C-alpha cells in the first residue's frame, strides 16, 4: 500500500511541476509571440501584396513587388551597397576592437579608466551624438574645415563626396561600437590559460608567435560570435546612415535598409517594403550561414 501511495505522489508531483511550468511559460510566450512571431508571418505575406496601411485592404499582386525589386537597378544597387558599406564598417570595427583589446590587456592602474572611457560612446544613443558630427562636418563653418583653413589647407566639401561620407559613417559606426566589441575580445583574451604563455616563453617563442599559436586559436569562439552577430547587425545598419549622411550625396550612400524604412514608414508602400525586407532578410541569413560554414570549416582544419 505504502509503495503505491508513494508512486502516486511522485507522479502527481511531476504533473504538478509541468502544469505549473506551462502556467508560467505559456502566457508570456503567447504575448511575446504576438509582438514578434506574428510580424514575422505578416512580413512574409506582405511582400506579395499592394497595401498602404492607411485605408483599404491589402491587394494580392503575386510576385509583382519582387519583379520590381529585381527589375529596377535601384534596389539591387542599394542591396550591394548595404553589403559593402556594412562589410567595411564590420571589418574596421572587428580589427580595431581587437587591437584595442590587446592594448587594454596590459596591467596598469589606469586600465579601468581606459576601459570605461572607450565604452562611453556606446551608452549614448546614436541620435544624441550624431549632432556633433554634423556640426563638425558643415562644409562652410564646420570645425574641421575651419581648422583646415587655419593651417593653410584646402577645405573639403564633405557632403558632396561619396568617399568622405562613407568614411565618416564608418568613423561614427566604429566610434560607437568599438568599445563593446573590445570588451568581448578582452573577455576572450583573459579566458586563455596564462600557463600556455609561460610555457611558450620557456620554449623561447617570440611575442608574434605567441599571438599566432596561442591567442588566435584560443579566440576562435569569440571571433565567430563577434563576426556573426556583427554581420547580422551591419546588414541592417541604417540609423548611422540616416543620421550622418541622409543617404546623400545624391543617394550615393543610401542603403537598402534605409530605403525599406522610407518605403514603409514614410511613403506607406508596404508591399514593396515587405518584399525588400524579405529579400534583405534572406540575404542576411544566407551570408551569415556561409560565414558560419567558413568559420567552422577553418575549425576542422586546425
Amino acid at each position, binding site marked *: 500500500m505504502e509503495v503505491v501511495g508513494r508512486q502516486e505522489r511522485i507522479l502527481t508531483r*511531476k504533473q504538478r*511541476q*509541468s502544469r*505549473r511550468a*506551462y502556467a*508560467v*511559460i505559456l502566457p*508570456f510566450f503567447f*504575448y*511575446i509571440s504576438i*509582438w*514578434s*512571431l506574428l*510580424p*514575422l508571418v*505578416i*512580413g512574409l505575406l*506582405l511582400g506579395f501584396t499592394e497595401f498602404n*496601411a*492607411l485605408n483599404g485592404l491589402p491587394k494580392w499582386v503575386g510576385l509583382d513587388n519582387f519583379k520590381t525589386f529585381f527589375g529596377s537597378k535601384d534596389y539591387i544597387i542599394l542591396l550591394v551597397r548595404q553589403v559593402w558599406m556594412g562589410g567595411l564598417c564590420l571589418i574596421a570595427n572587428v580589427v580595431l576592437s581587437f587591437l*584595442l583589446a590587446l*592594448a587594454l590587456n*596590459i596591467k*596598469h592602474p589606469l586600465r579601468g579608466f*581606459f*576601459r*570605461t*572611457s572607450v565604452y*562611453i*560612446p556606446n*551608452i*549614448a*544613443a*546614436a*541620435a*544624441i551624438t550624431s*549632432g*556633433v*558630427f554634423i556640426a563638425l562636418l558643415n562644409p562652410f*563653418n564646420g*570645425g574641421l574645415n575651419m581648422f583646415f583653413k587655419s593651417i593653410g589647407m584646402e577645405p573639403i566639401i564633405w557632403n558632396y563626396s561619396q568617399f568622405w561620407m562613407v568614411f565618416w559613417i564608418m568613423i561614427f559606426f566604429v*566610434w560607437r561600437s568599438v568599445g563593446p566589441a573590445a*570588451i568581448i575580445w578582452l*573577455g576572450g583574451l583573459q579566458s586563455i590559460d596564462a600557463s600556455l604563455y609561460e610555457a611558450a616563453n620557456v620554449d623561447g617563442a617570440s611575442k608574434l608567435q605567441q599571438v599566432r599559436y596561442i591567442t588566435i586559436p584560443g579566440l576562435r569562439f*569569440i571571433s565567430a560570435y*563577434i563576426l*556573426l*552577430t556583427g554581420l*547580422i547587425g551591419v546588414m*541592417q545598419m541604417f540609423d548611422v546612415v540616416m*543620421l550622418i549622411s*541622409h543617404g*546623400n550625396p545624391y543617394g550615393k550612400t543610401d542603403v537598402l535598409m534605409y530605403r*525599406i524604412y522610407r518605403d514603409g*514608414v514614410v511613403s506607406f508602400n508596404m508591399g514593396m*517594403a*515587405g518584399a525588400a*525586407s524579405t529579400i*534583405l532578410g534572406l540575404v*542576411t541569413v544566407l551570408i551569415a550561414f556561409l560565414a558560419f560554414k567558413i568559420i567552422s570549416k577553418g575549425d576542422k582544419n586546425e
Partner: protein
Amino acid sequence: MSKAMRTTLKIVWVIGMMILVLFMLYPFIYSFLGALNTKTDFSNLGTLLPIPKKLVFRNFLYAFTKTGIPPLLNTFYRTSWYTFWNVLVAVLLGYVMARYEFKGKKLFLVFIICSQVVPSVLTMIPSFVMMSKIPFLGGNNWMGMGGHGLINNPLVLYLPFGWGALLWVFLFMQSMKSLPKDFEEAAEIDGCNFRLTLTKVILPMQKPILAVIAANTALGTWNDWFTPFMYINRIKDSTLPAYIGMLATSLQEMSGDRDFPKLFGLSCVSIIPPLLIFLFFQKYIIQGIASTGIKG
C-alpha cells in the same frame, strides 16, 4: 627586455591610450561646450572646440521647459516599465526553464535561441503594419480598420514586448545552472511555495545576474530612440532621445531652424541617466556584454 625599455613602452602606451580616450570623449566635450553658446555665437564660431565667448546656461534647461518635460518623463516611465518586465520575465521563465521538467521544454529552448538570430529587418515594417491595424485601439474596429491603431498612440511605448527579452531568460537560465538545487529542496521541505522559494531563496542569491539584466535593459530602453521616433510624431508623447532624434535628422536639411546649442543642451541632459547607470553598474553591464558574448 631591459627595464628602461619596459618603462618607456609603458609610457608610450599610457600616452597612446590617453590620446585615444580624448578621441572617444571628444564629441561629449564638444557638445557640452557647444551647449554653453548662443545659437548665433555657435554658428559664427567654427572651431574644433566651441569655447563660448559668453556663457549661457539656458540650453541645458530646454529639457525642463513645457515642451521638454513630457518627453523626459515619458523616458523615465518607459525605462522603469520595461526594466521591471524584463527582469520579471527573465526570472520567472528562466527559473522554470532551468528547474522544471515538462514536455516541450526543448522546443521552447530552440525558440529562445533561434529568436536571437532573426534579422530585425524581417519584423520592422510588418510590426509597423500590425501596430496600425491592431483591433480596438486608436479608433480601430474589431477588424483593425477605420483608425490608425497604435501609430501616434502613446501606448505603443508600453504594450509591445518582443523576443528581445528572451536573451535575459537565457542568461538567467545559465546562471541558475551554477546554483545547486539543495537550497530549493530544503526550502520546499520547510514548506515554501513557489513564490516564497523564488523571492526568499533564489533571488537573494542571484542578485548579480538581476543587476546585469536590470542595468542592461534600463540602458537599452533609455537609448531606444528609434521606436518612439518611428511610431510617434508628437513631441509630447515621445521620449527625450527620440525628440533629439527628430532634431538631429532635421539638421540634415540645410535650411530651417538649425539650433545646434539647443540640441547639444538636450543631449547633455539626456545622457546623464544612462551615464549614472553605467558608472554605478559598470561591472554588471560589462559582465552582461562579456557573458552574452561568451555564452551566446
